[in-house]
């Protein structure tokens, strides 16, 4: 009787252990698949790390690139400025250039494919939220969405 009881309990715990391992494994696979298939960030609802004008942002990079890279790159920035130009890239991509204190060095924002560029007109003021990629001739922003 006692031995049977022990065997029963053992069988039960083995069962529970197996089921737990299976659940953990499935969970792991799900998390893995989720991470693997994670799409590029949508910044529509993201909280910005910085809110700055295009004039100040470009000036910061021109004055000290190294410091500005450490401060801004990979950060979410809400940049406000006057639209210099709106240009189509490859596919459905639109690049919006914002005026700065320099005529040669602007802030270029590549809109995410979900963004609607229809409302963007040269000369208008705009606020764009995006991720800063760094500085070439211009300050470059990616995954951008138009805020207003």
């Amino acid at each position, binding site marked *: 009787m006692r031995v049977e009881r022990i065997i029963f309990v053992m069988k039960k715990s083995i069962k529970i252990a197996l089921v737990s391992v299976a659940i953990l494994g499935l969970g792991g696979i799900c998390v893995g698949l989720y*991470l*693997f*298939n*994670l*799409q*590029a*960030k949508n910044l529509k609802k993201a909280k910005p790390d910085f809110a700055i004008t295009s004039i100040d942002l470009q000036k910061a990079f021109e004055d000290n690139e190294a410091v500005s*890279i450490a401060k801004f*790159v*990979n950060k979410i920035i809400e940049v406000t400025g006057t639209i210099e130009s709106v*240009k189509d*890239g*490859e*596919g459905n*991509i639109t*690049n919006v*250039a914002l005026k700065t204190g320099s*005529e040669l060095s*602007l802030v*270029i924002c*590549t809109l995410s494919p979900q963004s609607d560029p229809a409302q963007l007109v040269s000369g208008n003021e705009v606020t764009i939220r995006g991720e800063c*990629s*760094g500085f*070439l*001739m*211009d300050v*470059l922003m*990616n*995954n951008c969405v138009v805020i207003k």
Partner: protein
Amino acid sequence: MKRLSFIILLLGLFLTANAQKYITKNGYIGFFSSTPVENIKADNNQVASVIDISTGEVVFQALIKSFKFEKALMEEHFNENYLESEKFPKSTFKGKITNLTAVDFNKQGHYDVTVEGDLTIHDVTNKVTVKGGVDVISGGIDANSKFIIVPEDFKINIPGVVRNSIAKTIEVTVAMKYAPVENK
């Protein structure tokens, strides 16, 4: 009078000097890796490039972080493990059109070109020769090219685990829309 002609001469020189250079800051470079396991594509629409039609010199500059992938994890691995974009943020190409005489930049049309130069990726510079096309259009120049690079040539190490999902050779697509350098 003397002064005026001097100004006109100077202005003339300045204008011709300017008309020789074409620029874009919205150029496109993409790459594509295809294996039976997975296709991987990345796009960069923020490539800066200048072409000097008098000498045939071309320069390209791109930020590694401006390459955008469909999947966030791929982009992270690309930046952190393979291209090490914190250490080597830029990729550049400096070269020359070798058959410049075959292109008439004053006449609209399509011309086949060969470009030879130094391609720097991941802080490794290799000599490359690529074929491409130049389209002289009204108000600008379009340039296109497609070529193959081998990540190993640029000391880009792809670990064994993902070796099968990343191709040994990567197809690079270049598409530029140049406008003349404006005299502001």
